[in-house]
């Protein structure tokens, strides 16, 4: 993606029919650490990699609870995520106050999409620089939604966003067929194993022996399970469980494109999920 004359404002279309500012906002999501969302027949699970920016600081909060039946995991600008989660919480509380029921997940996603779209069509606003994975449970069952700064929301069977998330997506695609029948423990272990590939390559090599030192945040929601972020002890328990399961499966190194060091500069490290690209060459400055 190169700089061009049609990207100075979100209200300017390029001749190819693209809004470059919105696409640049999507790049912000790839700067955040990876997060994975997946669902079984009864549960939806979020796993996030909580890597602190330096040894001196703690990691940013990646998973926010919104209501008893819904929670989000974010990648991108945390400040924007806080604003959006405050909005989602307020919407859910108002709905519950007015109708004594939980906000149906798909409708909440439409509502959020409408709010985010407004920022892509005004000269005085900018798109929210945060991608979200939403895990929710309502009477239609468990849901995983991916919400991007372009204000698009996609219902997913499983998804991963953030930096180095391609290997997690590969893992999820490979095991997709087995998710529906998974038990609660199994789906949590799948989530942990999926995110394992998203560690930076030097650490991945060190941690190949044991997952137990992985710095992750896990949350689950589902049938008879209000949205809950797991405690340290529960995290360790599932890390060890995933460790045992991983030990019995041969680790296929060849799929992991991300073992190469991350590429800096404007070039994205991996294509990632995004709006459909036009097949007309871009204008060069």
């Amino acid at each position, binding site marked *: 993606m190169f700089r061009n004359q049609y990207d100075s404002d979100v209200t300017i279309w390029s001749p190819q029919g693209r809004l470059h500012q919105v696409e640049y906002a999507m790049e912000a999501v790839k700067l955040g650490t990876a997060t994975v969302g997946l669902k079984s027949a009864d549960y939806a699970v979020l796993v996030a990699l909580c890597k602190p920016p330096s040894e001196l600081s703690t990691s940013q909060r990646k998973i926010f*609870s919104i209501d008893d039946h819904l929670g989000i995991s974010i990648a991108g600008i945390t400040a924007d995520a806080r604003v959006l989660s405050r909005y989602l*919480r*307020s919407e859910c*509380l108002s709905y*519950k*106050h007015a109708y004594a029921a939980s906000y149906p997940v798909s409708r909440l996603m439409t509502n959020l999409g409408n709010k985010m779209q407004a920022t892509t069509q005004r000269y005085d606003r900018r798109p929210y620089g945060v991608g979200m994975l939403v895990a929710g449970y309502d009477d239609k069952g468990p849901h995983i939604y991916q919400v991007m700064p372009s204000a698009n929301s996609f219902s997913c069977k499983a998804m991963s966003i953030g930096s180095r998330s391609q290997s997690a997506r590969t893992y999820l695609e490979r095991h997709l067929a087995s998710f529906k029948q998974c038990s609660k423990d199994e789906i949590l272990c799948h989530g942990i194993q999926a995110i394992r590939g998203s560690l930076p390559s030097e650490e991945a090599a060190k941690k190949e022996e044991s997952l137990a030192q992985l710095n992750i945040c896990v949350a689950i929601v589902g049938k008879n399970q209000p949205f809950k972020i797991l405690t340290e002890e529960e995290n360790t328990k599932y890390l060890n469980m995933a460790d045992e399961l991983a030990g019995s499966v041969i680790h296929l190194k060849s799929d992991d494109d991300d073992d190469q060091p991350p590429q800096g500069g404007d070039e994205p490290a991996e294509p990632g999920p995004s709006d459909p690209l036009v097949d007309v060459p871009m204008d060069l400055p």
Partner: protein
Amino acid sequence: MSFLSIDHFSDYKVHGAQRPDFSPYESNGGSIVAIAGDDFAVIAADTRLSSGYSIHSRTQTKLFQLSPLTVLGSTGCWCDTLSLTSLMRVRMQMYEHTHLRTMTTDAVAQMLSITMYNRRFFPYYVSNILAGIDKNGKGVVFSYDPIGHCENAKCRAGGTAGPLLQPVLDNQIQLKNMNLDEKDKPILTKERAVSVASDTFISAAERDIYTGDFVEIKIITKDGIESMTINLRKD
């Protein structure tokens, strides 16, 4: 409010002018008793909801558990009770999202006071008693007037039979107005608090028409909330 109504100012009366006789308030009856112990709190409320001489329900609970350590008993105008407790739950959930912890009982007490005073000029016609465990692990009871004046008390009775029950509690729990030697003074255990509360309710049901049917008692300790129900007179 009634002393400011037009009936008291004869020079303002206009012949033929119609006054609406809609009152936004209705008393739906009921009584609450709460007792604070050293490391527990007991709150009890009857389950009768009435309107005039009719009964709406014999099994309507008036105790609202706001958190694992806090229970609010609310009686008076039932619509205001529902609205107020709903608002309290919403505000408490917002607090939990922002602060990642449950509100302490003292914080809930203060918030309830403020919420009620916000409606100073169209009050919630509710008699509230909040019981729970404070941040030091001690039992606390807070009582309120309709505009949110909050007072910490060891024991309190509210609702239609409040004036009947409060003297009994003062005597039996606070051991007031009695000549007792130190060695004869009973210690306030959980069992004694529950038995005094249920006895006062049984007496209230005898004399107050709005109190009766069942009494629901909740015993709050740091380990959780126990519930029990006792039969009362149903007439």
